[in-house]
């Protein structure tokens, strides 16, 4: 991947991220933060390669540690977000059939 392509992806993703999040109601700020935090655990992908490639023991140890830390971030983040969101209730949602998820 050339630097220019990488920068293109970066710029587009930043603008997209701002657009996606701009109108989030305050009720969802905390779940949004913990959910997006879990997504930032995507570093796990880089960690997997570092840990699995049999180069040097230093890289394997560092990679292993990184896999552990990033997995805590990912699994913990998505689970706690789900736990939080399952607490949100609305009388209106319970009546409507077109609202999957929120009334569980």
């Amino acid at each position, binding site marked *: *991947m050339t*630097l220019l392509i*990488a920068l293109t*992806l970066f710029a587009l*993703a*930043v603008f*997209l*991220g*701002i657009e*996606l999040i*701009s109108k*989030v*109601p305050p*009720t*969802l*700020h*905390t*779940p*949004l*933060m*913990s959910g*997006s*935090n*879990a*997504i*930032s*655990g995507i*570093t796990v*992908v*880089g960690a*997997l*390669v570092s*840990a699995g490639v049999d180069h*040097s023991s*230093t*890289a394997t140890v*560092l990679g*292993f540690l*990184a*896999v*552990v830390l*990033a*997995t*805590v*971030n990912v*699994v*913990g*983040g*998505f689970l*706690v977000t*789900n*736990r*939080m*969101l*399952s*607490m949100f*209730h*609305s009388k209106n949602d319970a009546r409507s059939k077109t609202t999957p*998820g*929120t009334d569980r």
Partner: protein
Amino acid sequence: MSDLIQGGYLIAAILFILGLKGLARPRTAVRGNLLGALGMLVAVAVTVTDQAIVSYWVLLAGIAVGSSIGALLAVKVQMTGMPELVALFNGLGGLASVLVVFASYVERVDPEMEDNTFLVAAGLSALIGAITFTGSIMAYGKLRGSVPTWRSSTAAYVNVGLLVLAGLAILGVVFKPSTIGWLLAVIILSAIAGITLVLPIGGADMPVVIALLNSLSGLAAAATGFALGNSLLIIAGSLVGASGLVLTQVMCVAMNRTLANVIFGAISGGESLDPDDVYEGKVRSTSADDVALILDSAERVVIVPGYGMAVAQAQHAVRDLARSLEQRGTSVTFAIHPVAGRMPGHMNVLLAEAEVDYEDLIEMADANPMFAQTDLTIVIGANDVVNPVAREPESAIAGMPILDADKSRTVVVIKRSLSPGFAGIPNPLFAQENTLMLFADAKQAVSDITKALNEV
């Protein structure tokens, strides 16, 4: 990288985008979170097909250990402890980025031969990751109350020191960390900068700090993506970085402060009122029974919850009071200040846990016009966010948007004492003619009111 991996990354990126989009609306939030998790699963699944990967047991062990710890933390945490947990997760993400970039640096045979993109990106990743790690650990300690806030004139020197450190670290990045020692120096300087950055920031500003660290953890992942030439890391990291910045901005606006002011200036200056002048002979205290009598004749009631309510674990008692009132035909709404909790939206989660309908929670902008038509406003464990001196240009919190609780017909403030809030200034609302103070533990007081109300 094989087509399978690239294709999987594309699918994962799309799932992340759909996930964030879903998380932005209450009705789709649960599904959004699941889509994000699915994207992560796809990303991990295609990555392990990488033919360079030989030692699968290391990966499996790492994933097993990480998943267990993560799941345990997620299940055990109390909702009042959410900010600490998010801070901790942010920190771990930052440290993971540092480790990954360091490991890939070690693998390079001859750094002198590397292209500049890798070296600069590796330096940036180490810089942002290390700041995120130590900054988050400091925030974690502060939220738990184990790291004191350092509010003295020397805090300014610390920040000057921080600038010097950050400058050195950035210089290290610009001149490319061409040796492993240089990269280590960048990591250590950035780690110190992360500590000094968060150390002088007060507890009231934590929502901004948590949002900013959230953004940084994303940017650290993106920088790692530049170093590894990994498109998915760049896309996912940038999405998170951008969304964290939006929330940081929202929080700053809610406190009428700039990000620079939060980081570099503690609340200071402004005319300080003398507590004795404000309160002397003007504060009227009340009892739970009297509040119940007022509630009995009230038609519109607004509840203003603050973090003190959560500290007293009074959410469920407050929910019971609201239900009793609604059964009597009284209209009850909750007015939520954006910085009522310890992280963006924290108060909403705390009330959701107590099974308060999220549609009864009103944002500041919608709540303020309602106060003039409100018979009784009950302020529970909140202080600075209802302090009317914010409207006076000379005051220490001048310009901070507040909930106009003082404009309702009667105000009842449930609070243990007249002690000041985070801003450290007295609150004239407590001495206002239409204000009654109920000095008590929030949980006990609210239960007593509900009991008295049901007996009226």
